[in-house]
């Protein structure tokens, strides 16, 4: 077994890190270099990642782990290291590929931005942290990179910090994911407490929890699994912590593609996949994951219908697709979840970059102000269409195969979630049809000349479109390559997948047809629903009032508590300090007045002191 490239896998995250350091060091003088350094760094990682992946594909399941001792505390030892499994090798390629394409794309999209160098350094830092997260071999290392990724997300969402909305979105993204991070931290502490030898590395976690050996009590296992899932919920934008993801669309569009569609939000799914044995040891946790995922998939898909901002529609579709992945993991299908993550990364990055190309051309994000772009932006239109079809689950595009894998599992395991998945798939294809038809067909609405974006922006679109078509064939009902390679077990049960394929295709096609009827042909009036049930449309447009509910239930009481604590600080704590200070000042003033140079005063005080002394001495004799 040759592990040549896996042995140097630690170099993969280092390339972008070096790029980040270089850009940081060059400061303002490096404005022109940003693009080159960032792109070269990510290209180097991409090449090495592909080599590692090929090595892993060549002769079956392979594993490489290396690291060094970080902290030695008595019997406990903490290592920092990396490990390359088939799962992480796959993730490496996904992350570096999307990162590289986003780097190329941003050269066109961010052209002329005066902070483009900073932008590239942030992307490089993000790529570094994400790759570190993927390669981490224990929970603590993973947590460190997990937080770094969160910081990068904060920096990039708030990249245009002069916009108040971007500032608010960055803060929201940071604070909301922090709630999830707290859960993950507690889970890690619990693991540390209950694991034999306080081991935190994934290998030993796997050994302990595999087959429910009972080393860790069932209740604790469930608690740990749920808390890890809370972390994943925060990062992957699952209900109820999904609120930050749509707001994060205030960041530059390439960032939305890289972080908030393809890679970072997948970190939650990756985390659950990585600690899958803990989840499998606890049926209750698995059920929670499945139901939260299923609910999020449907919930976000319905919101997507009523949004008007092109990026927000895609954001809600991301939330919804991540729900699918979680549902697959919760139903026990590691392959399904990771497969969907893999295909979704490509077609969602494609959709976001396509949206960026559109926004770049028309300078608006409202789809009602667009129209008729299809003839003017042919490449964008075609590639966007491919992405939309892949997302809608139309064969033979990649999304079809991965969604099919998930739905087949759901049909076997839990018919309720199967129905939920099918309904969500219908809504998905409907809102994508709405988006596509409103933007690319019909009459142009905006003024000014609209032209296709530059080559640096269209080439990544074409490459991603190729992946969006082809990536699905690694795992089909007749071909379990990915599943066997990923889990090492024989292929999943595919009986009944024929039915699933027919149903999901039919539902997807129905959604698109309905979208065509409403938004192109006009057979069904566009206000058919809004005129009859305005409350329903309002409910969807306001995203089920989740933000408002949070503001009323959580933000306001916390603000109240904050101002109360502030008042305590200001009046009680500061008051005590003011009293102490005032006493010292008063004492000083008294001291000054005593020093008046009058011998008689000094004498008087001396006498008084003597009298007090005598009283004390005599008094002691009387009272003691």
């Amino acid at each position, binding site marked *: 077994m040759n592990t040549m490239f896996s042995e140097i896998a630690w170099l993969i995250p280092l390339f972008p890190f070096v790029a980040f350091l270089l850009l940081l060091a060059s400061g303002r003088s490096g404005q022109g270099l940003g693009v080159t350094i960032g792109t070269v760094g990510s290209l180097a990682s991409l090449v090495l990642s592909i080599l590692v992946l090929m090595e892993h594909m060549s002769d079956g399941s392979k594993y490489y782990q290396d690291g060094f001792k970080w902290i030695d505390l008595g019997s406990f030892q903490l290592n920092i290291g990396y490990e390359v499994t088939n799962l992480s090798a796959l993730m490496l390629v996904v992350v570096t590929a999307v990162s590289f394409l986003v780097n190329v794309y941003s050269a066109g999209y961010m052209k002329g931005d005066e902070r483009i160098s900073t932008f590239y350094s942030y992307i490089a830092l993000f790529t570094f942290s994400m790759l570190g997260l993927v390669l981490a071999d224990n929970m603590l290392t993973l947590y460190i990179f997990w937080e770094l990724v969160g910081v990068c997300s904060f920096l990039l969402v708030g990249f245009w910090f002069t916009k108040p909305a971007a500032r608010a979105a960055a803060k929201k993204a940071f604070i909301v994911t922090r709630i999830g991070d707290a859960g993950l931290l507690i889970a890690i502490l619990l693991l540390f407490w209950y694991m034999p030898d306080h081991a935190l590395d994934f290998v030993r976690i796997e050994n302990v929890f595999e087959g429910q050996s009972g080393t860790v009590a069932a209740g604790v296992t469930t608690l740990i699994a749920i808390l890890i899932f809370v972390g994943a919920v925060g990062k992957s934008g699952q209900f109820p912590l999904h609120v930050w993801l749509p707001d994060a669309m205030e960041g530059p569009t390439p960032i939305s593609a890289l972080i908030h569609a393809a890679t970072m939000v997948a970190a939650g799914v990756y985390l659950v996949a990585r600690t899958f044995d803990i989840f499998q040891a606890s049926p209750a946790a698995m059920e929670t994951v499945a139901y939260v995922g299923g609910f999020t998939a449907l919930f976000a898909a319905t919101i997507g219908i009523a949004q008007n901002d092109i990026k927000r529609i895609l954001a809600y579709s991301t939330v919804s697709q991540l729900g699918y992945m979680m549902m697959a993991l919760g139903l026990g299908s590691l392959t399904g979840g990771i497969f969907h993550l893999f295909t979704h990364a490509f077609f969602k990055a494609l959709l976001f970059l396509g949206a960026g190309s559109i926004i770049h051309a028309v300078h608006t994000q409202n789809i009602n102000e667009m129209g008729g772009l299809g003839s003017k932006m042919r490449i964008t239109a075609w590639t966007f269409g491919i992405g939309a079809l892949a997302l809608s689950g139309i064969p033979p595009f990649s999304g079809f195969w991965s969604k099919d894998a998930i739905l087949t599992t759901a049909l076997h395991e839990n018919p309720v979630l199967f129905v939920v998945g099918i309904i969500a798939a219908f809504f998905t294809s409907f809102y994508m049809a709405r988006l596509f038809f409103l933007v690319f067909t019909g009459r142009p609405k905006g003024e000014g000349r609209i032209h296709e974006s530059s080559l640096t922006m269209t080439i990544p679109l074409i490459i991603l479109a190729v992946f969006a078509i082809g990536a699905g064939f690694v795992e089909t009902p007749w071909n379990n390559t990915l599943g066997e390679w990923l889990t090492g077990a024989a292929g999943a049960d595919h009986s009944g997948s024929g039915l699933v394929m027919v149903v999901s295709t039919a539902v997807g096609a129905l959604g698109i047809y309905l979208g065509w009827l409403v938004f192109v042909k006009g057979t069904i009036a566009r206000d058919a629903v809004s005129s009859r049930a305005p409350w329903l449309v309002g409910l969807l447009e306001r995203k089920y009032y989740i933000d408002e509910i949070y503001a009323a239930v959580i933000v306001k009481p916390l603000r109240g508590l904050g101002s109360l604590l502030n008042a305590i600080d200001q009046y009680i704590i500061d008051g005590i300090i003011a009293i102490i200070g005032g006493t010292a000042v008063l004492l000083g003033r008294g001291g000054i007045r005593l020093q*008046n*140079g*009058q*011998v*008689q005063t000094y004498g008087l005080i001396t*006498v008084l002191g003597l009298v007090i002394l005598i009283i004390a001495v005599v008094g002691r004799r009387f009272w003691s």
Partner: protein
Amino acid sequence: MLSSYLMVAAILFCIGLYGALVKKNAVIVLLCIELMLNAVNLNLVAFSKYGVGASLTGQMFTLFTIAIAAAEAAVGIAILIALFRARGTVNVDDYDEMRR
């Protein structure tokens, strides 16, 4: 008998102390200090006559004290006159050199 002497001496001392601390005229302050000294002398004499180990040593000591008190009064008056020449006042409130 002893306690009467001591009582008179104590009263004398207190009057002296009061005057020394309160009076504004420097000459009176000086006189009050003499009063306090004499209260001490009275004590010494009383103890030498009626004390437990009565002896003449106390009275001898008193003579010395009177002599030294006379010298001290002379020095005090001299300083006071010098001060009066320099400052033009005998009010002790105006003597606040120690403040500076």
